[in-house]
C-alpha cells in the first residue's frame, strides 16, 4: 500500500481516529474485524479465522441457529466448468428455486441468481424476444425452448475489471467471487456484465431462519446485507468439497453437467470434445466457462 492510495483502515482512521471510530456510540455493534481489516484476498489464516468467528456469532444471533462460514480454498489442478444441454431443458425452473434455497437468496424482496429464458424455436437464440416471466400450466410449451442463464464465470470477466475497489475477482479454480464486506454497492459490475448475472440487494434481504442453509462459504452463500451485489458461485460451498452444484442435482431431465476442465475424464470435457457447444455472446470475448450444448 503506497502513501498515495490509503487503505480502508487508514481512510477510516483519518475520518476520526481509529479509537474514536471503534468506540463511538452507535458503532458499538460494528465488530473490529469487519471494519478494520484488509480485503479478504490479502488476509492471513489467523485473520480469516477471527473474521469468520465474528460472522458466525452474528449470524447465529440473527437466525437463532448455528451457521458455519467456511473459507475452503481452491483445490489444486482444478478449473471448474459447466455445461447445460439446451436440447433437454424443459424450463421447469426447479434449478432456480433449488439455487435460492441452497444459496440463501432473499425471499422478500425476491432475488434469483438463475433466470430461465423462454425463446421461440423459430427465432433461435434471440435475447431481444426472450421471456423470463412465462407462465404455463405445463412445460415445455410447443414451439419454445428454454435457456437458463446465470453467471457465466468468464475468464476475461468484465465485472472484475469494472469493480473500483477490487471486491470481486477470479479464484484459482476459476470461480468469480465477491467479498460482500468489501463491496461498496456501486453496481459498476452489474452494468459491465453482459449477461445480467449480477444482482443487487436494493432492500434488506430476508431469509426465514428455518429456511436458512447454515452450511455457507465466506465467498458464497453466507447471509448478505442490503447494498451489496451477489451472483452464482457454482455453489462454492459445495464444489470445493467435491459435491455437485445444487442445480445439477435437482434438474429433473439431467440437463446440467459440471466438473473439472483440467481432467480429461470429466463430464464437462466429454461434452466439450463430443458435442456441439457454444457460449453466450462469444463476440464479446468474455470467454465463459459456462457452455451450452446440444445433447440430442
Amino acid at each position: 500500500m503506497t502513501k498515495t492510495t490509503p487503505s480502508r483502515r487508514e481512510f477510516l482512521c483519518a475520518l476520526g481516529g481509529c479509537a474514536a471510530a471503534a468506540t463511538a456510540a452507535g458503532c458499538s455493534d460494528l465488530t473490529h474485524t469487519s471494519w478494520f481489516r484488509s480485503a479478504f484476498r490479502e488476509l492471513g489464516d489467523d485473520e480469516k479465522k477471527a473474521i469468520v468467528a465474528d460472522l458466525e456469532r452474528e449470524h447465529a444471533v440473527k437466525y437463532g441457529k448455528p451457521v458455519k462460514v467456511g473459507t475452503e480454498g481452491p483445490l489444486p489442478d482444478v478449473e471448474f466448468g459447466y455445461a447445460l444441454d439446451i436440447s433437454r431443458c424443459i424450463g421447469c425452473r426447479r434449478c432456480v428455486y433449488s439455487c435460492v434455497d441452497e444459496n440463501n437468496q432473499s425471499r422478500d424482496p425476491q432475488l434469483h441468481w438463475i433466470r430461465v429464458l423462454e425463446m421461440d424455436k423459430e427465432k433461435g437464440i434471440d435475447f431481444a424476444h426472450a421471456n423470463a416471466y412465462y407462465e404455463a400450466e405445463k412445460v415445455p410449451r410447443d414451439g419454445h425452448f428454454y435457456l437458463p442463464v446465470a453467471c457465466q464465470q468468464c475468464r476475461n470477466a468484465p465485472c472484475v475489471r469494472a469493480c473500483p475497489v477490487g471486491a470481486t475477482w477470479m479464484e484459482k479454480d476459476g470461480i468469480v467471487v465477491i467479498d460482500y464486506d468489501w463491496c461498496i454497492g456501486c453496481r459498476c459490475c452489474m452494468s459491465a456484465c453482459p449477461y445480467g448475472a449480477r444482482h443487487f440487494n436494493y432492500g434488506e434481504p430476508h431469509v426465514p431462519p428455518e429456511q436458512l442453509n447454515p452450511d455457507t462459504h465466506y465467498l458464497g452463500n453466507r447471509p448478505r446485507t442490503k447494498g451489496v451485489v451477489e451472483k452464482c458461485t457454482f455453489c462454492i460451498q459445495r464444489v470445493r468439497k467435491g459435491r455437485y452444484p445444487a442445480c445439477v442435482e435437482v434438474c429433473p431431465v439431467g440437463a446440467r453437467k459440471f466438473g473439472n476442465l483440467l481432467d480429461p475424464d470429466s463430464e464437462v470435457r466429454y461434452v466439450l470434445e463430443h458435442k456441439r457447444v457454444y457460449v453466450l455472446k462469444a463476440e464479446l470475448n468474455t470467454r465463459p466457462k459456462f457452455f451450452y450444448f446440444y445433447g440430442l
Partner: protein
Amino acid sequence: MLAACGHEHGEARYPGVVKAALQSPGEKIEVPPPPFTEGAFPCSDCHDPSLPVNRERRKLEMAHQEIVLQHDEEHRWCLDCHSAENRDKLHLASGELVDFTESYRLCGQCHGDKHRDWRAGVHGRRIGQWNGHKSYLLCVHCHSSHAPKFEPKPPQPAPVRPEALGRGVVR
C-alpha cells in the same frame, strides 16, 4: 457392448468413454435398485415356469392391462425385451439374458448414442461427487420403459417482475 463392437476404432474417437468402459471390462455399473411396481418382482411368482407360454402378440386381458405400450409399439411386444424362458430376466437381441439391474445393456442395443453418453455421465443424472465416487441411475429411473417419452410438467412460479419489487425499473 462397446467392447463387442471393437474398441480400436472406438478408442480413437471417444478416448474418455472407452477408457471408462475398459477400466472395468464386463463389470456392472453401480445403480440403485430398479423401480419395480410394488409386489411385481420376482415375476416368476405369478408367471409359473411350469405353465405354457403364449407368445402370441395380443391385447393383455388377464393382467398388466394398465401398461399402454408407447415405445415403437407397432414393432415391439413384451417378449422382445422380457424373456419367456426366465421370467425374472430380460434378454438381448443375441438371446443373452440380463438382469433388470443391467437393463441399460438392453436399452443400449437401439439407443447406442444415448448409452455412450450415459456411460460418460452426460446423458441423464448422476449422483455423487464430481471428483470422486459417482453412481448412475438406470434409464428406467427417469423413463418409463413402456412409454419413455417425458410427460410435460408444471413449472415453478415465474419470478416477480422488477416493477412489482418496487424498483420501478426493468433491470
